[in-house]
């Protein structure tokens, strides 16, 4: 739920948000067809699946904190609002991987194993793209990337955490990474919507934001399709 304070957007931002929602709904649909997510939805998910998922997520989470810090440094003063959001975001999440490691250990994995996990080929593509975009001056298009990644946290993480707990007989402490994002990404998204209002002009930035959301959605799917392919 959005907070009590009523947020209203201008016509351009509304149009951008409608396109982003379309990108999101398509992404969510394709996500449900990825074998590991499908097993989760069908409740045929195993402890091995969970470990595989965590092993493959950790490199992306580590890379995530790098690109977002890089992006923050690429904004000039005229984009101070966006920079604040990105910085706050970087601070909030740059130690996230420790939660992920704890979860891995709590289901019987070893710390050494997860700490030495390599990027799969999907993660390579995702991290490479985000790092390259983050290095460009004023990468406002990354609002599209954040919409997808925060959206995953906001819309999917709690649900997945619940399903994982149900399938594997675990409690909240073994899904701390997913549970944390399920609870905290709403605030990030709300701030993002506000920024859309300030930053989107129909002619230039909006198409870039939408395109970036599409690319990130596609590469995130690739990462989940290529589990273990390092």
């Amino acid at each position: 739920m959005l907070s009590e304070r009523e947020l209203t957007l201008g016509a351009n931002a509304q149009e951008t948000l409608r396109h982003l929602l379309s990108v999101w709904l398509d992404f969510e649909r394709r996500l449900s067809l990825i074998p590991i997510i499908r097993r989760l939805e069908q409740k045929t998910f195993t402890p091995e699946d969970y470990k595989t998922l965590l092993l493959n997520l950790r490199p992306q989470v580590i890379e995530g904190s790098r690109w977002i810090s890089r992006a923050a440094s690429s904004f000039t003063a005229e984009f101070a609002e966006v920079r604040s959001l990105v910085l706050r975001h970087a601070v909030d999440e740059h130690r996230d991987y420790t939660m992920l490691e704890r979860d891995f250990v709590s289901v019987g994995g070893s710390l050494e194993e997860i700490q030495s996990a390599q990027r799969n080929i999907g993660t390579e593509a995702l991290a490479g793209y985000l790092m390259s975009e983050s290095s460009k001056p004023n990468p406002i298009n990354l609002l599209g990337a954040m919409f997808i990644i925060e959206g995953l946290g906001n819309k999917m993480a709690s649900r997945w955490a619940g399903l994982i707990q149900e399938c594997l007989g675990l409690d909240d402490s073994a899904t701390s990474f997913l549970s944390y994002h399920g609870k905290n990404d709403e605030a990030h998204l709300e701030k993002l919507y506000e920024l859309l209002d300030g930053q989107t002009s129909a002619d230039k930035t909006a198409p870039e934001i939408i395109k970036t959301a599409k690319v990130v959605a596609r590469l995130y799917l690739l990462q989940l399709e290529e589990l273990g392919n390092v």
Partner: protein
Amino acid sequence: MPEPPHAYITSTGSYLPGPAIGNDEIEDILGVVASKPSRLKKRILASNGIKTRHYALDRHQRSTHQNKQLAAAAARQCLQRAEIDERAIDLLAVASTQGDLPLPGLASMVQSELAIGPLEILTTHGVCSAGMMALKAACNQVRLSEKKNSLVVASELASRLLKKSRYEAATDLRIDLEAEFLRWMLSDGAGAMLVQNQPRWSGLSYKVEWIEICSFASHYDLCMSCGTADQSLWAANITSAAQTSELSWQDYSTYGRAEAAGALLIRQNLKLLEEVVKVGVDGFLKLINEGKIRPGEIDHFVCHYSSHHFKGRILDLLKLAGALIPEDRWFTNLYTKGNTGCASIFIALDELLHSGKLEPGQVVFCVVPESGRFANAYMKLTVAAGRNVSAI
């Protein structure tokens, strides 16, 4: 190439069998399964909001009508209000979830009931969107000038699936929420429309601006079905050969065995229902993004769902994205006429046309989400004045 002429819905009719049945009378008609009143009934009725509906069954669960008769009754009302003679009908398109007979098609049976033709017929079979499929085909025939006066009928007689003996006969399984849910949702009725290439001479017509139908069956599992004891066995990633020789009701050695196994019960996967709303919203956003509809131009929103299905995040996001249709624009007769599957939108548009609420130029936007295996239909109509008025 010049734009082909538009199709107009120039007359409508509907038929609901028997008296209106209130919530506390449902089990008087459908029967009390195994003499135990349902525990789920109240909860499901509270969530769908339906207050009255109609059944083509008497109090002993004997059929009072055939589906073809419901269809024909709606068609007759539509033709009585039409400005043409029934002999001028050149296409009969009939939609239903299930005809009276597995074969031939329901359109054949309705044609014989109406005693019209010889003419071209079309039967569409599906769930809620089947009516829109028939309507679109009829509109396109008129637009192509292949036909002048197409009669489209959508008719449902679901109650035959819902009577107590059906559940009692499923002796091999415990009746769960999935199998019981639709018992408190569906009811009987039919609606009809006449499609022509110009508006009525006198009185209002609907101009059909466009109809879009999109199915997502390869992305989702079965959500509503009849004919299998286990919907999950039809999942896209399961190769049917590997599973069981009793996948479809027709695979059982006798139909009696299929019924005992629960393969003839009508089922709804409730967990997947939320996805139907998402798919519906997705299609709506695409139409906005393509410029086919603007939320602000909609005067009457006719949806096969009631507004209370749109809750939570998706509602917040639609609102934020300026794509929420205000509640006072929603038109529904779901609460009094019941959920009559593919006939619902026809029955709603019939009531709206005669409600006195329409003015020429107004935009009517219709959405028919189908949960069977995720197919959605959208239609934009504008209200057209009579030619006698526009001629002045």
